[in-house]
C-alpha cells in the first residue's frame, strides 16, 4: 500500500490516481500510523517552503519521514516535498532561511532566471545508474517552482536547467525526491512512478 501524506490543501487527487496506475492500493492520509507503516510514503507539497513546513509539522510529518528512514521504509518527496528534505530554504520575504527536515544538507534558494516560476516541461540529465529514470531518461517532465537545491546530495542525481543548473531529482537509499511533478508529467511521469513503486 502507498500512502500519500495529506498535510494541507492542494491537488492530491491527481497524485492518488497516478500512483494507483502502478498497481498498488493508494490511500491519502494524515494519520501518523498509516503513514509510518505504508510500504511507500509520498510527501507532496504545495505553496511556499515555510507554509509547507508548518502544514507538515501539524501532522508530525518531519518525525514520520525520519522514523521511516531509520526503519528503512521508502519515501518519495515531490516538488516542495523534495525541497523540505533539505536543511533550509530561503523562500521568505526577508530572505531569512527557514528550517527543513534536514535529511539532506543543503539550502534551497531562488533560481537565477529572468522568468519565474520555472513552469512547464523540461528535460533532465539523469545518472545512468538511476532507478527512477530507467526507460525515460530522455523524456520531459512538468516543473512548477521558483526555488531549488543546486548542490549534489544523495547517491544518484538528475539535473535540469532554468537560468542555472539545479537538482531535478535525488535517489538516496530509502529516500528519493523529484523537483518536478511525476503525477503531472503524462506517460513519462507514470513510468517514473512505476519505477519507484517497483523498487519498493
Amino acid at each position: 500500500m502507498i500512502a500519500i501524506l495529506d498535510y494541507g490543501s492542494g491537488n492530491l487527487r491527481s497524485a492518488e490516481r497516478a500512483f494507483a496506475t502502478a498497481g498498488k492500493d493508494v490511500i491519502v492520509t494524515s494519520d501518523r500510523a498509516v503513514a509510518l507503516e505504508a510500504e511507500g510514503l509520498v510527501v507532496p507539497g504545495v505553496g511556499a517552503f515555510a507554509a509547507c513546513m508548518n502544514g507538515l509539522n501539524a501532522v508530525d510529518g518531519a518525525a514520520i519521514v525520519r522514523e521511516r528512514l531509520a526503519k528503512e521504509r521508502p519515501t518519495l518527496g515531490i516538488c516542495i516535498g523534495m525541497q523540505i528534505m533539505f536543511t533550509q530554504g530561503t523562500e521568505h520575504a526577508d530572505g531569512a532561511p527557514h528550517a527543513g527536515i534536514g535529511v539532506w544538507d543543503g539550502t534551497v534558494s531562488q533560481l537565477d532566471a529572468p522568468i519565474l516560476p520555472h513552469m512547464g516541461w523540461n528535460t533532465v540529465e539523469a545518472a545512468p545508474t538511476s532507478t527512477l529514470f530507467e526507460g525515460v531518461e530522455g523524456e520531459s517532465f512538468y516543473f512548477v517552482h521558483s526555488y531549488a537545491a543546486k548542490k549534489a546530495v544523495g547517491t544518484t542525481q538528475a539535473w535540469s536547467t532554468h537560468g542555472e543548473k539545479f537538482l531535478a531529482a535525488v535517489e538516496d537509499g530509502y529516500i528519493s525526491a523529484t523537483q518536478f511533478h511525476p503525477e503531472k508529467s503524462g506517460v513519462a511521469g507514470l513510468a517514473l512512478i512505476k519505477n519507484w513503486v517497483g523498487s519498493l
Partner: protein
Amino acid sequence: MTLSVRIIPCLDVTDGRVVKGVNFTDLVDAGDPVEMAALYNLEGADELTFLDISASVAGRETTLDVVRRTAEQVFIPLTVGGGIRSVDDVNRLLRAGADKVSINTSAIARPELIAEIADRFGSQVLVLSVDARRARTESGFEVTTHGGRQSADMDALAWVEQACALGVGEILLNSMDADGTRAGYDIGMITAVRAVSKVPLIASGGAGSLEDFSAALDAGADALLAASVFHFGIHRIGDVKSYLGKHNYPVRQMAPH
C-alpha cells in the same frame, strides 16, 4: 535542457459541454469536455484549460464533476477558470483535481483576492486572466469584463503590474479584439505585457495560421493557448508542435506509447 513552449487547448465549458463562439457570442456545441481533454492529452497538449462560462450554480457543480473525471484519467496540468470569487472556491477546485485556477473579474473587483489565494496556496496555482483590447488608455490597452463587452476602466499594463506585485504566478493574456477571429495573436499587446512582467505569459486569442504561433513566441510568450483552431480541426496539436520544432522552438516530444 531547455524549458519547452507550452501548447494549451482551452475548453469553454457550460453545463457540462464544450462550446465555442466568435468574440464570446454565437456559441456552438463542440463536444464532451472529458473526452476532448483525453484526446488532446494523447495528441500532445502540454496543459489543459477549462473556462467555466456557466451562468448558474448547477452549472458550476457540473464543472467540478468534469474536473474530477478529467483528473482521474489525464495526467497533465489542468487550469480551471470562471466564477472563482473566494479562497474556498479555489480550494474546492484544487481538491477536485485542478492544478491551477485562473481569476479575472473577481480580482478586478477585489484585487486583495490575489494575495489571499497566493498566501494560502502559493503563487504557482494562480493565473491572472486579462481580457484586454486596444483603447485610448495610457498604454493603448484596456481591461474589459463580461467577455469583452464592458470596459473595466483600467489600463491593462498597470493592472498586470499591480497583479504581479500582489502575487500572481502566471498571466493569461486574451485579446478581445482578436478572439475567435483566427487573424493572429495581438503581437503588440504580447510585447507590451512581456515588458512589464516577469512571470510566465500565455498568449490567447486569434490563433489561426501556424505562423501565428511562432510570432507570439517571438513577441515573448512562454505558452500558447488556442481553442477554435483545435476544436474545429483546423490544426492538430501535433501540427503546431512539428512546425515550431522545425523552426527551432523547444517543444516537448511525446513518448511513444
